[in-house]
């Protein structure tokens, strides 16, 4: 065994040991953080779908109603302005 190989073994072995011991510590911490579901128990749904479905449909309805209301208000305003201008144009011609 050459001097370089001996040196590599001296450095590598402690490094590998350090990594494995760190993984062991992390694994123990993981055991504390994640608790497995006891056998025979079923998991309840965490995120109910009803509020999401309700929000989606409500948003579409409200957006359409608001847009239609704004559109008709704008149209009314523009048509009123046009009628005023037409009468002014007629008056200026006469």
């Amino acid at each position: 065994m050459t001097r370089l190989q001996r040196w590599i073994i001296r450095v590598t072995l402690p490094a590998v040991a350090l990594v494995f011991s760190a993984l062991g510590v992390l694994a123990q911490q993981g055991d504390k953080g994640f608790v497995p579901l006891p056998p025979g128990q079923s998991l309840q749904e965490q995120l109910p779908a009803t509020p999401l479905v309700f929000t989606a449909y409500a948003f579409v309805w409200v957006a359409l109603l608001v847009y239609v209301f704004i559109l008709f208000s704008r149209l009314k305003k523009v048509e009123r302005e046009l009628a005023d201008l037409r009468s002014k144009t007629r008056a200026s011609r006469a």
Partner: protein
Amino acid sequence: MTSHSRLVPLLLGVAVVMFAAAPFVIDTAPYESSMGLVQRIFYFHLGAAMTMLTSGLVCGIASARYLAKRSASADHLAYAAVELAVLFGTMVLVTGPLWARKAWGVWWDWEPRLTSTLVMYMLFVAYLLLRRFGGAGSEVLSAAIGLFGMALVPFVYISVNLWRTLHPKTSVLPTLPKPMLVPALFCLAAFLILYWALLLIRMRMEAARAEIDAAYLSLED
């Protein structure tokens, strides 16, 4: 204009009746086996998305016509179509994440369908901003943006087939079982009829605005 004034109330009436009946029609659809209740967002999401894509196509064709012939009515149509594309695009971008939150576990994912839809939506918003604040001559530049928006429409549609993605593919609609297909087509028809009515109203408003501009010019002369 007279035929429009008769057609618009009819279309609006049909759309209102269909939207009022939509919850009852959707209620007849069975639950999807893996997603359950949240899949029901699909029926309005699909209608809004197809209407947005239709509006993008209408805008692009009208913009091309405006660029070629400088037709004022084509410009009015493009402007109206873009505003509606933004309206229905907003619905798509709100209902989609609400569905994704439950189905995928996230509100948003940077996958091809969602990203390309967002880019197209932003192009249409840019069109509206340009028309609102761009001043004289912004019609030509915004028509070019409208063309880019239309170019994205087929890309948005087939993106789910070209790349591996979380989003359902285009084959979903033709392969739907009849109890799910009927509500989907019903909602799609409701959205498209409403779109047609709103487009005619919006065009009428643009025509009136153009007439106002012309009247001011004649008064100044």
